């Protein structure tokens, strides 16, 4: 037979445990919108029974632990997907900026300037002595040079912005690695004291996910800690974080044996990987733009030097000395100040009517002089534009596709770990009723004790 005090004990345990339940429910509701939060659940078990007659009597209830609802395998998959998504997000943003520079869907791109340049030569060939045609050619040539320079500067700007973004991403990586190392320590301490560090683990999981979106790191759980490595070097080892730094074009990381180099080519995904990919693409586009400019400069200069101007001047370059690429292409200042020096006539022709040279230069438009003499200047540029657009489209498509995969994975994760308000409300009602009932039990016991005390 149990004593009345035993009943009070049962009531007390019930009150405490239901209160814990309400507290955990409240915690879940409070974190309904917290990224990376896993809903928690109180594990209940009945209390230690006491020996009595006619048999063991229940000892109330006890809360064994607070568990987080979490699927660790899904977590690893989400981390992997974060790397892909981060890469395409960054590459997409870089390529979209590059694509604007090569946007020829309007009618005022480099293509337009190129045509006007070649056609100005044809106009000059039609009237080789005309001063209007000559100054037109100078102004079209300057417009072409300016456009090349603008485009080159714009691509270079994007490149240096990408470098800045890589630098920021690297400092994010270091920040998160530091936080993970600190959480490793706190989680170990908590577990040593027999506590379940649910929220700390959620925070660490979230940090690993965010870190994954930045670079292709690999994480491995070992006991209470998570170790992170990048390209085989430890980024977080137990409770220590190692600093990564961007030493353009490569990376270096501190190790126990001094700094080690991580080649840019080893960072293949995450935002840093995406920025690097966009940077490589930008370098390729810039190189091809430079090839185009150099092709035009060389071919026009060679022909121009072989002709003669109205003043019989010959051997003059049409583009200024030092014009070698899109970045520095400029019309020869001697020609700008005196367009009569434009060599429209062939070497053997009389001026001003001779136009063989102007016609030959105008004809360069149709000659396969680029890409190992297989493409005209126009076709070479068109294929560059096509490639820029193609890469931008691939990045955008990949981003969309990876986003939907990510959404699906997140949705699986939320199915297990996400908080449902309906569910929590039901739990709240359930715990609240149990709490009220436990209180009723205590007040009933109190009345019984009162009756007992006032006997006699």
């Amino acid at each position, binding site marked *: 037979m149990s004593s009345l005090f035993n009943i009070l004990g049962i009531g007390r345990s019930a009150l405490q445990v239901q209160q814990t339940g309400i507290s955990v429910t409240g915690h879940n509701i409070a974190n309904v919108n917290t990224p990376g939060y896993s809903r928690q659940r109180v594990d209940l078990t009945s209390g230690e029974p006491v020996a009595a007659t006619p048999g063991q009597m229940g000892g109330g209830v006890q809360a064994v632990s607070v568990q987080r609802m979490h699927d660790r395998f899904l977590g690893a998959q989400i981390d992997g997907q974060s790397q892909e998504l981060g890469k395409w997000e960054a590459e997409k943003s870089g390529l979209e900026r590059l694509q604007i520079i090569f946007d020829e869907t309007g009618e005022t791109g480099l293509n337009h300037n190129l045509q006007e340049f070649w056609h100005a030569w044809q106009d000059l060939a039609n009237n080789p002595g005309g001063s209007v045609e000559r100054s037109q050619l100078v102004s079209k040539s300057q417009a072409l040079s300016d456009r090349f320079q603008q485009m080159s500067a714009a691509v270079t700007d994007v490149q240096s912005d990408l470098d800045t973004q890589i630098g920021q991403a690297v400092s994010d990586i270091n920040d998160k690695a530091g936080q993970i190392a600190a959480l490793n320590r706190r989680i170990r301490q908590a577990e040593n004291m027999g506590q379940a560090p649910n929220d700390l683990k959620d925070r660490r999981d979230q940090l690993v996910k965010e870190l994954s979106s930045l670079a292709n790191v690999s994480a491995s759980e070992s006991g209470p800690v998570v170790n992170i490595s990048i390209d085989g070097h430890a980024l977080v080892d137990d409770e220590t974080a190692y600093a990564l730094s961007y030493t353009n074009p490569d990376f270096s990381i501190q190790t126990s044996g001094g700094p080690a180099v991580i080649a840019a080519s080893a960072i293949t995904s995450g935002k840093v990987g995406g920025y690097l990919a966009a940077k490589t693409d930008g370098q390729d586009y810039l190189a091809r733009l430079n090839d185009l400019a150099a092709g035009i400069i060389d071919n026009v200069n060679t022909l121009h030097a072989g002709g003669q101007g109205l003043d019989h001047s010959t051997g003059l370059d049409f583009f200024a000395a030092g014009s070698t690429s899109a970045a520095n292409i400029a019309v020869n200042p001697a020609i700008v100040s005196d367009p009569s020096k434009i060599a429209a006539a062939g070497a053997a022709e009389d001026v001003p009517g001779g136009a063989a040279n102007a016609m030959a230069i105008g004809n360069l438009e149709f000659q396969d002089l680029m890409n190992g003499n297989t493409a005209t200047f126009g076709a070479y540029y068109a294929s560059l*534009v096509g490639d820029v657009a193609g890469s931008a489209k691939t990045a955008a498509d990949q981003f969309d596709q990876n986003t939907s995969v990510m959404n699906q994975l997140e949705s699986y994760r939320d199915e297990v770990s*996400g908080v449902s308000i309906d569910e929590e409300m039901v739990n709240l009602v359930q715990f609240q009723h149990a709490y009220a009932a436990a209180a009723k039990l205590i007040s009933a016991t109190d009345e019984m004790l009162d009756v007992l005390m006032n006997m006699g």
Partner: protein
Amino acid sequence: MRISENMLIDSMRGSLAANREQLVDAQNTLASGKRLNRPSDDPAAAEQILGFRGQIASLAQYRRNIQKGSARMAVTDASLESVRGLLQDARNLAQEQSGGTFDDQTRAAALEAARHIYDQVMDMANSRYGDQYLFGGHRSDGPPASRDDAYNATWSGDEGDVRIAIGANTSVSLNSGGRNPFRNADGTLVFDTLKNVIDGLAGGDAALVAAQVGTLDQAVERIKAVQGADAIVAERLAATDTQWQHLQNHYESLLADTENADMNQAAVDLMTRQTAYEAALTATSRVVGQSLLDFLK
């Protein structure tokens, strides 16, 4: 399946954003009338468009060249037509004056006429198109023919070939490859022949006048031949222009097909997407914000 709050919100948010993006795309297409608003909308088309625009611009340039060339040839033909008439007159005059009717009165009148013809032919030889002298070859900046008081002519033009481009790597000569219609087969100028007529008439040398008839006949024939050759070139220019015009229309319609949106389709797309977006908004407003909380006292 357990539906948590985040799943619900995320999926609503995702589908609203997707619907909205599609709606904006449809609006852009309809507003710009273009299927391509960014190169990445269709990279292959973005590349093709450049090719088409290049073709159209080149054809327009050829047609501009041809237009200038045709105008120049028309002026040339008119000048040569006059020259031919004048030389024919000179020939007839020489023929008459070399015959029996050779008296002082007709001779004085004929001399006057011959001098007049000489100067008119020279005027024609110095014809211009714009600021270019037509018959000066590459020395197009000054009059090619000039004379002194004694009717000694000087030719300062050259035999430069004046060409225009009418296609990629194709050009035609506008002055029969630099051939000078005012130069006789033996290298003398037609003006020298006319001077002989004038000198003969002035000096009463009927034999000298008679000797020029044959040369003048040849000169008339030569001008005819040049005109004939020019007519062939002019026809070729006209035919090429027509051809380029067809091709230009062709490329323009290709460009339009590649670049322009099908407006009917775009309008239908806009309506459909608007409906879908409104439906998504309605669904979201019904579902979001509802929970068991609303039904508990």
